[in-house]
């Protein structure tokens, strides 16, 4: 009884974790901090160049 409870609880949690991992892009590819910074900078620059929609 206790054994089954322990197995069930941990395995359900593992199953949820795996399901969530399946949908995470950063599992296989992580954007480096510099790239992230560059992306943000580029986005800012284009944001400044083009007038924003209201």
């Amino acid at each position, binding site marked *: 009884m206790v054994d089954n409870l*322990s197995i069930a*609880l*941990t395995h359900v949690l*593992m199953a*949820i*974790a*795996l399901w969530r991992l399946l949908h995470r892009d950063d*599992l*296989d*590819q992580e954007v480096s901090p510099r790239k992230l910074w560059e992306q943000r900078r580029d986005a800012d620059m284009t944001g400044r160049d083009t007038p924003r929609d209201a």
Partner: protein
Amino acid sequence: MRDIAFIAFLFAFIGLGFRRPFLFVLCFCYIDIVAPQRLSYFLINSIPISLIVFGLAIGGWLFADDKRDTRWSGRQSLLVMLLGYCWMTTMMADFPVEAQDKWSWVWKALVWAIFLPLTLRTKLRIEALALIMLLSAASIAIAGGLKTAGGGGGYGQLQLLLNENYGLYEGSTMSTVAISIIPLILWYRRHGTIFPPDWRVSLFCFALAFACMLLPIGTQARTGLVCLAVLAVLSLRAVRHRLLYIAGAGLLVAAAIPLLPQSYTQRMETIQGYKADQSASTRVAVWKWTWDYVKENPLGGGFNAYLQNHVRVEKAAGPGNAPDAEAGAYEERARAYHSGYFEMLGEQGFPGLVLWLLLHFAGLVQMERTRRRYLKTRRAEEEWIAPFATALQHGHIVYLVGSLFVGIAFQPFIYMMLALEIGLSTYCRRREREAGWRPQMQSRGFART
């Protein structure tokens, strides 16, 4: 019913691996720790599921994973040397058949520890591996904790899901490992992203850490108590409010002592006088034998060389009128080392012990370096690194203390923790190299990016 659930879970796990090959890696770790094939009575216990997933994991990495930024670490080279050396001693072992028996799982643990860091390229992968290791160990720890809380247990009596001394299902091994994962559990509570921090995660993590603390009581493994004391002292480095922590820990101990079973307190009292305790006296005699043996055979006797020992143990009189309290001498044969250090010394000789010690101490030093480097970072995406390095380092120290009294020099779970450490170091190096950045220090007063 349980068998069907295991089969469904395992096949679903493997199935997901075909979409994300890294999940094969996690699947192998799960199989290695939980050993579902041993808990099951049909289908998966008749096919070499562990070997199949091992192949899938390595194949998945070889053919489907991005290897551009894969890095090699010095500790992996040490592991390769240890693997080669162990293979050599197995070939020249005193007991070739028995040595081959242990080699059949040791090589897998070592190869896995060499391979695993190559796959740990992203933060999420590191976290996922830590989570699967924790949850796999939790399936044993929760059952053990609940049984202990329910009044079960006793030395060699607490049944941990499986009624055999396999891997983590052995009482003393599990007590040591359970204590060594507590820092990692507490790390996950605050830094997990698969299960982001909330009250449910906190509740589970605290309950799991408590179950882990109960295990040494349930298994009555004295090592567990020593490990717990070491961890309590180590945690002083990591906690924010030290005085509060000391007061809380003192209160907890004072409250727990009256609730402990008498058999437990009696057994723990034997820590003080090993000469009156048969198990401890035998241990010391075996260690003396090992030292004498290795002086004549400096390259060790290969795996399971202890089988040839023959020791005469003199036991002092113990307190009370218990049947084993009388003084006396007795002879013992083929007694195991009951110490990771003497296990390495006796089986792999001086070179093996040196390699093994180097491997572990290099790990501790690396974690300390990583910890210091990232301790004061203010970049939100790096805040998990220093606490993670600290958690791994503390777990590692607990393991090294535990293996003073338990023969777990090749425990696969610990090699996975070692792989996590290597993975963390190479991950940080890669990040720094990629960006040419160092962690932004708080003292310099830079703004958060």
